[in-house]
């Protein structure tokens, strides 16, 4: 085929400078792939995670009540406002691990496994109905513990009497946190099995799905209160708690909805950055092409080409590269989306139904991939082709008559620098728009990179902040409660324990002014001068020993009960007792449940349980925490001591366990963010490679002169590599300046969306230092190829360059 000469020239230009063409293609591909990967992941997550979750018909609210029969559900379903009501039995149990340690287990029982409509599970293997002496395991626990069909699991409800249950089914339950996050085994047994294990057959939870306003928190609470007041309590069953499932108590929402939304938002912002950077790189490269071809443009114009024709040619140049980049981006983006979705699926325990590329995302990628580069390239093309024929033919490549900037003059005065180094420094500042762009690219990459590190440090700090409320080495719960002095004395008998505090905890509600009730709040009674809590007060003050009628609430409670503030009165209801309190202070977010703190005497009055505590918190050394291993050992000693003393058979919790479970939940998020930061760094590196290539190209003559006056290959390479490093280090300096505000914004946004709380920002200096290392490597790697090209130039080639 005889291709039109114009288009042949363009194709030839693309082909003859493969390095530069590939640079542009890869840049576009990475930006567009990032857009595709992230948007497709967002779509698949919404489709599969949230879709599958709502298919399971999640409970709007769960009502905890005194033992009741199955028939109670019929009464509650009779309410007009209730769409569905189902009973279940939830028992705290333990499973024996390999080394004999007990693992926490939530053992649930429903009347008919084939008729579950609320929080339904999907059968993965075996039978949906647990057999007698059989157990169904949630799949995340089964795979984490490497349990399979037919395996026997040793289960105990009290860590004394054990039962051996055979796994006869593996189910998938999306309505609860997977084992990797909660570290609690979720399992199902039949009522006959539970009876065989020595339990009385009854139910203790009522799952409700409201008929209308499924997402309306106030309405859901109101319906639950009606169920309680009109059906459950009149039937004689005391309601102990009503709780909307999920991290923030939003009915019908996936338990990590907010966190996921936060991550997706950040990812989308990052993909936007990636596309901006790759757009900028296209501008930079096309500018260089135009600089290089300015003489050819002059020649073409001298033989009759009008500007529109030249513009067309370079637009086609960009179009060819963008089509190639986009075509490469499509499979890359899909692969990325596949990877990211599967990582998320593994972490959040959902199934990826199908990895596909829907027309909307395909169009988004095609549109952005083709229109963005062509759109942004319009600017350099229009300005590059504006040059007069005279300037194009005669002025190009002379390089004389440039006005020296103040900076260049300053550099020239650095006389103690070696000439090659001085040349590198001067070269760096010669093409200022390009330097500015390259710097912007690298600075964005660097700022994001160190912002991710700062976010990590801030998160760790945030988790440490949470540690203020678990300021103990070990805590152990005392089911049913025990005398405070007894448990504290018993704990202090263990060698090495200096502090032992008995705390009272119970569930209650806040009675609102309109007569409605909040969902469950945890009411805590603190001993005088409690040391295992170091509250961070966001308003008001902490409790004083002599406080009467005063309470401190946490920020978690304010999220559920907005509008409350210091000085307000609240009415607390525990069982049948109601009492009014004034809020003395607000403690920072706990990341657990809504909590109300009061002095132990107040607590005793409210609950009617004098000097009874429900948990004991111990610490070996005041003011310091033991290592995780020491805490674990202390926990085991405490468990044994309390078991021997017949005070508790519960397993202990250590501070490090509690904190690390929070940290784990965020690690995945940081890995994803780091991945995006690496993509940005790659784009930054490509940008620098391009800029260095252009820099060498533009100074071919100067390099020739260097060679002519005896510069070795090595010196020429050094000039170029040092220039690359100068740009890289300069970008690092600017990154260092902007990394604080960028890190502050990213960490703040991340923590606010994920945790709903204000972050106390912690800057990560190691992050900045890591970026220094990375940017130095980028500087060297990016300039190696251009340096090699420069060193290869012969004096003859350079003389012909004119």
């Amino acid at each position, binding site marked *: 085929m*005889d291709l*039109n*000469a*114009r288009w*042949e*020239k363009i194709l*030839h*230009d693309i082909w*003859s400078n493969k390095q530069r063409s590939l640079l542009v293609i890869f840049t576009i591909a990475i930006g567009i792939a990032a857009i595709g990967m992230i948007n497709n992941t967002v779509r698949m997550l919404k489709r599969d995670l949230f879709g599958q979750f709502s298919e399971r018909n999640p409970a709007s609210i769960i009502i905890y009540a005194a033992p009741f029969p199955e028939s109670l559900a019929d009464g509650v379903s009779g309410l007009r406002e209730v769409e569905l009501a189902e009973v279940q039995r939830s028992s705290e149990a333990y499973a024996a691990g390999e080394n004999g340690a007990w693992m926490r287990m939530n053992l649930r029982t429903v009347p008919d496994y084939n008729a579950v409509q609320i929080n339904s599970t999907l059968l993965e293997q075996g039978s949906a109905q647990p057999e007698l002496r059989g157990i169904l395991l949630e799949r995340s626990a089964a795979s984490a513990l490497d349990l399979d069909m037919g395996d026997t699991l040793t289960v105990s409800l009290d860590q004394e009497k054990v039962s051996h249950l055979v796994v006869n089914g593996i189910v998938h339950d999306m309505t609860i946190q997977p084992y990797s996050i909660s570290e609690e085994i979720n399992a199902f047994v039949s009522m006959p099995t539970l009876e065989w294990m020595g339990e009385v057959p009854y139910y203790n939870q009522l799952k409700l799905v409201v008929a209308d306003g499924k997402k309306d928190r106030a309405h859901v609470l109101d319906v639950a209160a009606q169920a309680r007041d009109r059906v459950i309590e009149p039937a004689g069953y005391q309601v102990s708690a009503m709780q909307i499932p999920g991290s923030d108590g939003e009915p019908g929402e996936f338990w990590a909805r907010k966190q996921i939304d936060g991550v997706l938002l950040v990812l989308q912002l990052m993909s936007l950055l990636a596309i901006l950077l790759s757009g900028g790189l296209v501008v930079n490269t096309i500018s260089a092409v135009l600089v290089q071809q300015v*003489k*050819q443009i*002059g*020649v*073409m*114009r*001298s*033989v*009759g*080409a*009008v*500007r*529109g*024709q030249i513009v067309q040619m370079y637009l086609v140049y960009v179009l060819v590269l963008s089509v190639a980049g986009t075509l490469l981006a499509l499979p890359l983006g899909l692969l990325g989306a596949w990877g990211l979705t599967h990582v998320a699926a593994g972490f959040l325990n959902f199934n990826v139904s199908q990895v596909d590329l829907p027309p909307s995302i395909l169009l988004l990628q095609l549109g952005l991939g083709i229109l963005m580069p062509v759109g942004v390239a319009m600017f350099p093309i229009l300005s590059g082709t504006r040059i*007069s*024929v*005279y300037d194009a*033919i005669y002025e190009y490549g002379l390089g004389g*008559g440039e006005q020296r900037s103040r900076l260049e003059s300053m550099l020239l005065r650095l006389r103690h620098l070696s000439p090659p180094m001085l040349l590198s420094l001067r070269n760096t500042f010669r093409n200022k728009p390009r330097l500015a762009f390259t710097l912007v690219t690298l600075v964005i990459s660097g700022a994001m990179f160190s912002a991710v590190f700062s976010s990590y440090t801030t998160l760790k700090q945030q988790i440490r902040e949470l540690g203020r409320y678990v300021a103990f080495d070990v805590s152990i719960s005392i089911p049913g409660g025990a005398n405070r002095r007894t448990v504290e004395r018993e704990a202090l008998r263990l060698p090495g324990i200096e502090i032992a505090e008995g705390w009272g905890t119970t569930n209650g509600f806040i009675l609102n002014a309109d007569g409605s009730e909040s969902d469950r709040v945890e009411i805590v009674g603190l001993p005088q001068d409690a040391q295992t809590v170091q509250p961070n007060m966001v308003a008001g003050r902490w409790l004083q020993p002599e406080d009467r009628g005063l309470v401190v609430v946490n920020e978690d409670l304010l999220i559920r009960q907005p509008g409350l503030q210091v000085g307000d009165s609240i009415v607390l209801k525990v069982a049948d007792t109601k009492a009014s309190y004034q809020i003395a202070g607000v403690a920072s977010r706990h990341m657990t449940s809504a909590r109300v703190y009061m002095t132990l005497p107040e607590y005793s009055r409210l609950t009617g349980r004098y000097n009874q505590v429900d948990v004991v918190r111990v610490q070996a050394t005041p003011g310091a925490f033991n290592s995780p291993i020491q805490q674990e050992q202390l926990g085991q000693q405490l468990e044994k001591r309390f078991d021997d003393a017949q005070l508790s058979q519960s397993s202990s919790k250590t501070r490090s366990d509690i904190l690390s479970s929070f940290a784990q939940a965020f690690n995945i998020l940081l890995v994803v963010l780091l991945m995006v930061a690496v993509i940005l760094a790659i784009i930054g590196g490509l940008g620098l490679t391009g800029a260095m290539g252009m820099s060498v190209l533009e100074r071919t003559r100067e390099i020739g002169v260097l060679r002519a006056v005896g510069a070795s290959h090595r010196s020429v390479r050094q000039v170029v590599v040092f220039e690359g490093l100068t740009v890289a280090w300069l970008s690092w300096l600017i990154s260092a300046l902007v990394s604080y505000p960028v890190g502050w914004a990213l960490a703040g946004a991340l923590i606010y969306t994920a945790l709903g709380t204000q972050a106390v920002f912690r800057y990560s200096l190691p992050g900045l230092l890591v970026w220094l290392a990375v940017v130095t490597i980028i500087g060297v790697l990016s300039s190696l190829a251009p340096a090699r090209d420069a060193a290869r130039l012969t004096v003859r080639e350079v003389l012909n360059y*004119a």
Partner: protein
Amino acid sequence: MVRKMDFETNPFTLDTPGILTLQPAGKEVQPDEAGIYISRLHKSYHTPAGSIQALDDISLQALPGEFVAVTGKSGAGKSTLVNMISGIDRSDSGQVLVAGTRVQSLGEDQRSRWRGLNLGIVFQFFQLLPSLNLVKNLTIAMDFCGRYDPQERRPRALHLLEQVGLADHAFKTPSEISGGQQQRVAVARALVNDPPVIIADEPTGNLDSHTAAEILDLLLELSQSGKTLLVVTHDRGVASIASRRIELLDGRLQ
């Protein structure tokens, strides 16, 4: 001998205000289409070292079919004159009428198109497009100007290459042939759109004497074929075969 423009007898009276205003820019003004007519042309360049008067009150003409050689020392203003005639650069004042068009009154794009159709240029450094083979270097000029049917362009390019003795190299790129051969391609390219006027800026300046002689023969042939030819040169050989010689010294005609 230098022949300055005779304003008394020449019908081309650009300096006559009344006539000038009657002529719309870019339109044909006189029947002498193939010629070059220059009147009171001034051009100076401003450099950090001061102002340089490149052309100072130049008036001259090259009649249709004439072969005019412009000579002068380096810096005399020869290339500036070529750039004024070809519309590559703009004058400070004065008029240039080439092939019936007042070049300096055209916009940049109009000049490009006008140049492509009416004026063939041969540069000292050949200025071929390095990525295209010789045929394409010729067809691209026809393509830009939309001259000839697309099917005709390639045969025409091959024919012209044959005329300059390069038919065997038609599909090579410029870097694969010698400097003299490249200059012949440049001459062929100047002819592709069959312009009435050809100007050449030091066409033999970069060539050895044998190759230069070949290019001179080519130029002579062109002149004999009726094209108006203006050649800027140092080369005494070129000046000797031209029908007329104009000498520039410090931007002025001698």
